[in-house]
């Protein structure tokens, strides 16, 4: 007497309860982190400011997109698939072609004094351009810069750009600065 067995709680249904909760969270969970093309907008321009000095024609790579999603690159129609190569050639200017951008000698850590292109990519779109087209063009231009940076990183450090340390990335960014400027939009195509 007095020493009775303590009744055990039946834990068999514990698993069921846990499974129920698990399935609920499995269904409601969204693991994807948001990803996108990062861009900086220019600060608003005060009305009083005088117009900036004009940039030389050879230093500008003009990309226009119309309401029919057609490209006009440097006054010539172009297919989206050729844009990346064209942009790379413009930025790099390997032959010092006088119709392609000038270069400026600047001092960069790890590299010493190197010529850096003064080229600017100017992007202009119509109000009727499809968003996907606009983003594809932005994507191709970003890809052109990324490929150049990767190639340089490979040559110099034997690693991909994204695998380098921060200060080395900074140096490469100084050599290939991403200069994409967007003009005020026009409304030609209607809509």
């Amino acid at each position, binding site marked *: 007497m007095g020493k009775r067995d303590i009744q055990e709680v039946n834990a068999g249904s514990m698993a069921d309860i846990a499974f129920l909760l698990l399935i609920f969270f499995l269904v*409601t969970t969204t693991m994807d982190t948001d990803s996108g*093309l990062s861009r900086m907008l220019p600060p608003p321009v005060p009305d009083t400011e005088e117009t900036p000095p004009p940039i030389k024609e050879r230093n500008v790579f003009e990309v226009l997109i119309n309401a029919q999603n057609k490209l006009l690159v440097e006054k010539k129609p172009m297919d989206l698939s050729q844009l990346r190569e064209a942009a790379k050639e413009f930025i790099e200017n390997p032959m010092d072609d006088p119709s392609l951008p000038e270069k400026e000698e600047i001092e960069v850590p790890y590299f010493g004094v190197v010529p850096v292109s003064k080229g600017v990519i100017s992007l202009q779109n119509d109000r009727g351009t499809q968003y996907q087209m606009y983003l594809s063009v932005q994507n191709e231009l970003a890809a052109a810069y990324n490929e150049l940076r990767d190639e340089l990183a490979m040559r110099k450090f034997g690693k991909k750009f994204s695998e380098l340390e921060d200060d080395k990335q900074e140096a490469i960014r100084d050599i290939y600065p991403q200069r994409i400027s967007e003009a005020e939009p026009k409304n030609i195509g209607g809509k």
Partner: protein
Amino acid sequence: MAKFRKKRGGGQQAINTASLPDIVFMLLFFFMVSTTMKEVALKIQLKQPEATELTKLEKKTLVTYIYVGVPQRQYQSTFGTEPRLQLNDQFATVDDIRSYIVQERESMRESDRAKMTVSIKADFDTPMGIITDVKQALREAQALKISYSARKVNQVPM
């Protein structure tokens, strides 16, 4: 003379399932921690555009979202079929962006305010007109870091 005696018991041995709840609970906690509930109910049709050169937006607390697209079918009678903006849970116009940005910025910690990023989540078929208006409004509101939200693919549709 029974050299080959039949094994006693016959039936299969039951597997000990006492640790099963522990395993399940472990999984449960993992999902509970990593889960993020959907913040807003979408009122617009959103099929994200595709791109390859994407960067991830790391800190969720620094990101403000602006949705752009055609209203979903049940809202089309009131809001029409032209692309509209959605801020938080309601439809808005471009003029509302400024106060929305200010309000979002106020709710952030002071040290984070400079790092605020605005993610534009727009439908792939939206005309650029409304997105340009949004960008101009963001410039006015001094929210200059933006991100065009897109889905990662290996090859962009040409």
